[in-house]
């Protein structure tokens, strides 16, 4: 089996300037082709920049947008993952990633988990995707796409692996923060992502590709540190922090087969158990079934008994 050559592009997009970013993508695609890459991975919102706010509608592209089509047309003989703002036919805006192969769009993933806390405000400006699915690829393995926050939720890598992905790809615009010296690489964000990606690779016995942008949007510095992790959790490639560039490494799919046979976690996975428990939990949270962990006397869907129904209310009434 031929090794797979993967190029990770740590791009610094120009905020809101689609034309300039298309040009950056084209140049890096050509460079990756030159380097013999089978797969080229660009970061989240690489075609638009991250901190868009009300620019969201101005940079949004339908899948038939000529600028997108021209870029997709340049993927003859290779696969590319590209991040952009997708506008649906009914004018919803999504943070999206497409997989283009041999000049056609094979798959579009819309970010399911929009970050909306701390420095993030994505749900104000974007709709949330509702599908997590793996897709067959010309690379000969199933591919699963996630976008940044999607991989802060355990369900996404697990669903992708169960659905047949052997290559989990997360594209990110991760803002660097917490420069405390105790953190790995001096950056709290890097510590977290490195830990998670190794865990996902091992727990799903899959290759994990993480591509994070670099550069500055407003106050935010994006930290790069893109990686390829083997199903064993071993690091195949670790790109430098903050540097713009294209980083190439090879993966051997025989390693994945070996790992899955030696450590048959996926074979032994029990999705039907998960599904039944999730159905129960969802019903309990919706108040449609009694909640085993709720206080006695709690209303359906609530964990705590209402104070109004308890002794506190009656003693208050006596005063």
């Amino acid at each position, binding site marked *: 089996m031929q090794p797979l050559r993967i190029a990770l592009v740590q791009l610094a997009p120009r*905020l809101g300037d689609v034309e300039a970013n298309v040009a950056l993508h084209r140049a890096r695609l050509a460079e990756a082709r030159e380097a013999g890459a089978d797969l080229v991975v660009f970061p989240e919102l690489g075609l638009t920049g991250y901190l868009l706010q*009300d*620019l969201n509608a101005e940079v949004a592209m339908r899948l038939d947008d000529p600028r997108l089509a021209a870029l997709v047309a340049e993927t003859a003989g290779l696969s590319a993952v590209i991040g952009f703002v997708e506008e649906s036919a009914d004018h919803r805006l999504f943070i999206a990633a497409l997989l283009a192969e041999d000049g056609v769009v094979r798959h579009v993933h819309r970010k399911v988990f929009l970050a909306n806390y701390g420095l993030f405000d994505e749900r104000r400006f974007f709709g949330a995707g509702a599908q997590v699915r793996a897709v067959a690829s010309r690379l000969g393995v199933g591919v699963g796409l996630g976008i940044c926050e999607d991989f802060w939720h355990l369900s996404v890598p697990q669903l992708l692996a169960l659905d047949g992905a052997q290559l989990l790809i997360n594209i990110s615009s991760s803002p660097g923060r917490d*420069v405390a*010296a105790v953190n790995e*690489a*001096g950056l709290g964000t890097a510590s977290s992502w490195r830990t998670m990606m190794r865990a996902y690779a091992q727990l799903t016995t899959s290759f994990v590709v993480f591509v994070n942008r670099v550069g500055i949007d*407003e106050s935010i*510095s994006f930290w790069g540190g893109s990686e390829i992790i083997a199903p064993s959790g071993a690091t195949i490639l670790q790109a430098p922090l903050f540097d713009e560039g294209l980083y190439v490494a090879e993966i051997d799919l025989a390693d994945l087969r070996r790992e899955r046979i030696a450590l048959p976690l996926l074979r032994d996975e029990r999705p039907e158990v998960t599904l039944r428990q999730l159905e129960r939990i969802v019903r309990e949270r919706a108040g449609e079934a009694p909640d085993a962990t709720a206080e006695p006397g709690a209303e359906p869907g609530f964990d705590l008994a209402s104070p109004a129904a308890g002794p506190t209310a009656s003693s208050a009434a006596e005063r």
Partner: protein
Amino acid sequence: MSAPGPAYELPAELVIDTAVARRIAVDFIRGQLRQAGFERLVLGLSGGIDSALVAYLAAEAVGPQRLLCALLPYRTSAPASRADAESVVAALGCPSRLIEISPLVDAYYGASEAGVAAEVGALGPEGREATPRRRGNLMARVRMAILYDLSAAWNALVVGTGNKTEALIGYTTIYGDNACAFNPIGDLYKTQVRQLAEAMGVPEGIIRKAPSADLWPGQTDEAEVGFEYADVDRLLFWLVDRRRSEDELLALGFDTVTIERVTGMVAAAEFKRQVPPVAKMSSRTTGVDYLYPRRRPGSARPPG
């Protein structure tokens, strides 16, 4: 001071990776300039550690020839401050301007100090009664006005030099020393500024000396505010960065009086950290529901 050992107290939780902080700050400066369509910077160099550090970062980001350091002393400013500022200029090899602000400030309040002709200023006789706080605020705003004038003359952006400690507790003059196009060290506490300054090679005398706004002779930040930076930085770190409640802060060893004093200062200074509110009347209001990044296609200054 002949005592060897650390130049300052450094609580463990405030230790930063200076290589990463330096990289972020330098790339941030370059990014801000590129997005705005500028190539040069101007800053007010006081002789203190904050502006010295920013000068070092700016020189690294754009080269010393593209950094103009403005020395803006008032006649009561300590001569040692000016000497320290000059040592930074000499070490970096950047262009500098020395502009005395005394005539500007005195033209408003009048000159009432001993040994100076007692003249009434533009404000009238009342000017002589102005408190040190008022005078200090005007000095800060006169310096700001000069920096913005120099920025136009020099085709440069004004780079900010305020740190996180002073922004949080409000030890800063709104539209004075906190006015800038962008600030590369505004998320570093004073004790972290010292670490980065040490890593950048800022002269040790500047790192070791007692921080001072230098608005009157002998003034020091710590005497004026009433606590040491190492202590207030630790408290702010647990309060702001680590979201600890008052009870949890007490359990960490902080005392009630300090906690209440500092949280009160932080709350009272909120207005200094935000854009002033606009009365909403229309369907789309700047800063409320018209939200754009500061820099986007078309917003960079046209070349030439």
